[in-house]
């Protein structure tokens, strides 16, 4: 089920809120059972058969956590169990996400003729697998208590706000909230406002700019201006799509008393690539930091060679996590190269304001790589951006898309920087704001719903991850 759908907004969400705060009001267990059943229904609405895979993953990790909790004191035994847990989870992850890619590459590189299996990718597998691993490791590290009741693990891993597109909620973040969260009207209202903002980002900005991006990437020829229009449109699309989804997830969580950590912090204002990744998809970055980078040795007290190796591992895996395609791997390795350079030379600190240009240039080029169907497609597209493909500087198509998207591009720029935060801090407590804020957000909600009902273009980029 999509958040940005009539079924979710007009049927699923009000029904769950009504049941949660009426029938289940007096019992935390009843509320958790309701949210778990609702989450499984939410997932099954999109992919009924994959619910079984998710349930199997949840059950396996529930058992691993119970096991590890019992034998934690025996370090070697515990590490063996952790190794087994990782092997099981990563094997499942590999089969569903990377087996087809691997077999296809073996066939093409070695001229083999291995049958390519027909395996569909379960929606959100990258998110719920990482949460499952987080659960067992956090229990092992005693950052959260083990759950004796399977339902609570199901709720943590399958909770519908963050199930299919993140953020990757660490177990330590909400371990306590499963039983001891406190719902309040203030949180509920704040959650609603956050949901509206996220819905607006998704339906108005991301979906609309997607049309220009898709047209540019699908074109056989594109002028320099059209290539840049498409690249920028995609850069905004992916930001507002993903951060909008995260806003909706955080808002929905708050409606039920859960507090997730922020997933984005205006990444496009960064002055270096390292800073960009501290602001972009924060939950993924911190997951890799805590479960891969630090266990490998991190950056402190290691040799330069080891540091480079650790960074390589993290960024190779980050690229691979985003998809089974060479474009994602090269995209991850591009960040490996840039971040390694920044760490070893510290050059980005000397760039001053030019750091913004340097960062945005590589981020946008990175998104071209990320969006392209293949490396050669990306190379051709980038050549077009710099007029190296024998293409014209400007054409009527570029003019059309710039004209059609002028408002959305301006809005995208304004909301990519902390404009809203500035306005809130400057005018948030004025009488005018007290009147205008509810009107503006209600209008935003109505406009967003109008786009949903209109059946406008509604792609969800992060579903495949």
């Amino acid at each position, binding site marked *: 089920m999509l958040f940005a759908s*009539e*079924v979710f*907004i*007009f*049927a699923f*969400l*009000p029904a769950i809120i009504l049941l949660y705060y009426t029938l289940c009001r007096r019992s935390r267990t009843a509320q958790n059972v309701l949210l778990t059943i609702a989450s499984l229904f939410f997932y*099954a*609405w999109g992919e*009924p*058969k994959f619910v079984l895979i998710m349930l199997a993953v949840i059950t396996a990790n529930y058992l691993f956590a119970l096991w590890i909790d019992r034998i934690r004191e025996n370090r070697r035994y515990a590490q063996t169990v952790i190794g087994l847990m990782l092997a099981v989870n990563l094997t499942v992850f590999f089969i569903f996400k990377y087996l087809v890619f691997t077999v296809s590459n073996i066939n093409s590189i070695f001229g083999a003729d291995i049958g390519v299996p027909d395996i569909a990718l379960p929606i959100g597998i990258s998110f719920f697998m990482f949460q499952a691993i987080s659960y067992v490791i956090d229990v092992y590290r005693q950052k959260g208590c083990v759950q004796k009741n399977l339902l609570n693990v199901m709720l943590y891993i399958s909770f519908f706000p963050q199930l299919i597109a993140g953020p990757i909620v660490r177990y330590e973040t909400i371990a306590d909230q499963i039983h001891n969260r406190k719902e309040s*009207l*203030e949180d*509920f*209202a*704040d*959650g*609603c*406002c956050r*949901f*509206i903002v996220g819905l607006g980002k998704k339906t108005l900005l991301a979906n609309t700019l997607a*049309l220009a991006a898709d*047209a540019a990437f699908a074109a056989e020829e594109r002028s320099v201006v059209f290539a840049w229009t498409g690249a920028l449109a995609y850069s905004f699309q992916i930001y507002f799509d993903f951060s909008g989804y995260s806003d909706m997830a955080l808002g929905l969580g708050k409606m039920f008393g859960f507090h997730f950590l922020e997933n984005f912090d205006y990444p496009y204002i960064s002055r270096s690539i390292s800073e960009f990744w501290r602001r972009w998809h924060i939950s993924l970055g911190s997951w890799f930091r805590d479960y891969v980078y630090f266990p490998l040795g991190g950056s402190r007290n290691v040799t330069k060679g080891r540091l480079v190796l650790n960074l390589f591992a993290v960024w190779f895996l980050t690229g691979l996590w985003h998809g089974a395609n060479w474009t994602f791997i090269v995209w991850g390795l591009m960040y490996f190269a840039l971040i390694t350079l920044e760490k070893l030379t510290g050059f980005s600190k000397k760039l001053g304001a030019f750091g913004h240009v340097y960062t945005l240039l590589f981020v946008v080029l990175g998104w071209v790589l990320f969006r392209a169907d293949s490396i050669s497609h990306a190379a051709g597209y980038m050549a077009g951006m710099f007029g190296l493909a024998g293409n014209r500087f400007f*054409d*009527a*198509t570029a*003019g*059309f*898309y710039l*004209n*059609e998207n*002028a*408002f*959305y591009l301006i809005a995208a720029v304004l909301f990519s920087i902390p404009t809203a935060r500035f306005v*809130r801090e400057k005018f*948030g*407590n004025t009488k005018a*704001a*007290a009147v205008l*804020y*509810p009107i503006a*957000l*209600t209008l935003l*909600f*109505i*406009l967003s*719903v*109008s*786009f949903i*009902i*209109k*059946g*406008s*273009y*509604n792609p969800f980029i992060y579903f495949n991850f």
Partner: protein
Amino acid sequence: MNTKVQKITALLMFVVIALGSIGFLSYSGFLKHVGWSLLKGYEATVPEDERSYAGRIEYYKSTITSSISDTVDKNHFYINVNGLMQRLLGANLVYDADSDSNVIKLDNGWLAFSIAEFDALPCADRIAGLRDYTEEKGIDFLYVQTPYKICSYESFLPPVVDDYSNANTDELLSRLNEHEVEYIDLRQEFHDRGADHYALYFRTDHHWKPETAFAACDIVMQRLSENYGFQYIEDHHRIENYNVEVYENIFLGSQGNRVGRFYGGLDNISIITPRFDTDFYFCVPEYTPGFDIVRNGSFADTMFDYTHINTEDPFADSPYAAYIGGNYALNIIVNNNTESDKKILFIRDSYSCVFTPFLALNCKELHAIDLRNYSGGTIREYIDEFSPDLVLMMYNPGALAEENLSMFELD
């Protein structure tokens, strides 16, 4: 932001949600339809050997989704809001979940759908095959090609939109030419007469106006009188011999319906009725099983279904369908006040709704068949049974599309 303001915002959000939820829950057919679908619908609609667990789940899901989608915006509030926003932001291309239904605002403000590239040659071959069949029977045949809203001389299309309506049509007519099939290309006829192409069309709909159909009938009757032995009665083709009642701002056409009344405005529609005496028998056989629509009387009393004229809600109905009542599978019209003894079998599409009444003034008996809906046998069987003097086939360029292949089942 202070919490009181956020609480007001949350309340407003839930008022909006509640209005939408009440919208579909209060619709009397919703619960009944969903209930029936969940309890009996799957068994009733899917053959036993095609049933599966996954299919059943998918059926339930699509039933609930479509039921909510169909009823949550019954008053078209959100479609109008969306259209207004698109207009304010100057959007010239309004995307739809179904890309065939993307609404294009032409540079002159008219709304249109574009037509995809299509291989029209097999269609032309089938038309030629039907012509051969009528020739064997000693029956005349004429194909009439209507224009399309997007003009071949000045398309006014945005640079990113390709439209093949005229290219497909050119291919069809070129092939008909090779087969020596008689045809009238009304695109050329109107152009040669200096017509303002876009004035021939509604702003928010892809159909031509009744006034255009009236003029088209004049052109067709001139040809029929020249080559097919029909009588050309000049009085039938002078607009001053008709009452023209204009209903202002009541028509939101097929494109307008997808973008709301504020994006492209509303159209006027004229009801054109003769001032001279007329007497018709009008019948739609088997409109519903065992029930025929039958009307006897003047042109004004028989050729129109005034229930389609809704001056309150432009989304509720199409006043275009007031002309003969819409796209019936079969329509039989007998002119009791004519000296003509000619019988016409008219193979038609929706452009003919407004054309048929004027054509009926010029013959004794007119049988109009819409092959998208007709299931009473083959067209050749109908020709054998009816023995018309002329088989007249008139399609618009939009007929040349994959989904309309049934319109060319002419064997």
